[in-house]
């Protein structure tokens, strides 16, 4: 059983930082019966065990945590993600360039420049919801999704960019691939990225990709 707490209604890094701060604060309270929290863009799903806590007790803890919310002052962790752009690894890179009337090199530069905030993880194990795509390289989804996108594929869908952690059907425009495993159930933690991290894409060559893969 769970409570869903909505802290606002927009996609915003400051608001999202409050979501993560609340999740940390509740985890730090170590309350018997209070379960895992699942962050969204502007909300936190708070699981609890009704055999050990009732809803009012959970609400009290949430209000106490909100009153003393501490936003993290140190800088977020930056995770560098090497990407080979284009070619067989990024079959839609040219389409994205044409759609935006840019050269391929410009698309790669604009995609690998920003620090992308990880708002939360969802959809597939380890899949990061990233913000911060430059609108100059936005591109609509494919009309017909592909049956299988390889793990590690980096894509653009509308004004979002993302990375497929495992092979999956999908309609994103695939512009490159990373040799990193976004999710590995043998690893602890299994997900490479955590909510609140920042991502930077680093262009790499085919040789570097082969060495890392």
């Amino acid at each position, binding site marked *: *059983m*769970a409570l*869903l707490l*909505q802290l606002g*209604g*927009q*996609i915003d890094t400051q608001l999202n930082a409050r979501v993560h701060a609340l*999740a940390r604060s509740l985890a730090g309270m170590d309350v018997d019966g209070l*379960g*895992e*929290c*699942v*962050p*969204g*863009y*502007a*909300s*936190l*799903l708070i*699981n609890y065990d*009704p*055999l050990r806590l*009732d*809803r009012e007790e959970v609400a009290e803890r949430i209000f106490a945590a909100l009153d003393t919310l501490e936003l993290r002052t140190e800088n977020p962790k930056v995770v560098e993600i090497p990407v080979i752009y284009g070619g067989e690894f990024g079959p839609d890179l040219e389409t994205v360039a044409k759609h935006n009337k840019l050269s391929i090199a410009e698309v790669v530069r604009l995609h690998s420049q920003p620090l992308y905030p990880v708002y*939360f*993880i*969802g*959809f*597939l*194990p*380890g*899949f990061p*919801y990233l913000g911060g795509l430059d609108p100059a390289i936005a591109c609509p989804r494919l009309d017909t999704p592909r049956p299988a996108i390889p793990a590690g594929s980096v894509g653009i869908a509308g004004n979002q960019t993302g990375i497929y*952690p*495992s092979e999956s059907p999908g309609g994103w425009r695939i512009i490159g691939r990373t040799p990193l495993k976004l*999710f590995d*159930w043998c690893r602890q*933690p*299994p*997900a490479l990225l*955590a*909510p609140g991290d920042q991502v930077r894409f680093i262009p790499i060559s085919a040789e570097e990709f082969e060495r890392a893969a």
Partner: protein
Amino acid sequence: MLLEVLESGFMTTVQDVSGRRGYAAQGVPRSGAMDWFALTAANYLAGNDWNATGLECFASGPILQTNANGVVAAAGRGFELWVDDDHFPLWTAVGVKSGQRIQLLALPDAGWGYLAFSGGVDVPLVMGSCATCLRAGFGGFEGRPLRSGDVLKVGGGNESTRIWPGIKHSLPAIVMPNYGDAVVVQVIPGPQVERFEPDGWAIFLASEYTLSSLSDRMGYRLEGAPISTTHSADVLSEGTLPGAIQVPGDGKPVVLMADSQTTGGYAKIAAVITADQPLLAQCLPGRGRVRFRETTVAAAQERYRGMLRQLQQALIARA
């Protein structure tokens, strides 16, 4: 005890009751039994902890061969438990001897069936759970449904064939769920219920929905009167969990089930209460019909606590 899979049945997976908790923020689905009540009952009957690891199948059950003594218990909807040439109804525990064949035989109304073995199925703990995560291929037995020829390890070794002294060997009928293909399922209003008010909410509560055959462990799709929204059906993606009822733009509700994704961007009209999730799970996709009735959080939690209490009182003599 080792169990050799002679025939796998359909979608036979290794599952526990609670599923995987603590990794949803990394996008890991909960998994675990579709019908938490049936696997809990089977575990109690086999003398196990409520959350021990067992087998789940759908519509067609496995045939297994033992190489040691132990106790097996069966639960769920629409199966019979066969041990060699003897057959037993569901919600029963039976002692089995080395070399015997255990079969969960499907009847015409078979839904989700469960087998629990004394000591539990022994598979590696992955992220705190033995449940199979089919979507990402880990947990349970090699992250996949069972195939004939697989060999499962169960419990410690050679166990007593006696039903555990503190346990009754069958569940009283009064405690068994009222499974069927026309069920009334209680819901609490969801976080975006106001987007559907007043018309959509009224349609939702007044209509009978048919379970689409395109339903699976991730979600049960409902066919019926489309639900109108006053605003867009999309919300900023937020955490979800099994039982939540999403309404996409086409107005056809989808109930998230055990393998549900952890976040979603559709408005949620309601949530099926934990106590009634087994009823919905066991209502058969393709022919089952569902109606929803509103309840309160307090009443829902009381019903859940009551169900567990009744189950424990019925089976555990000392409780």
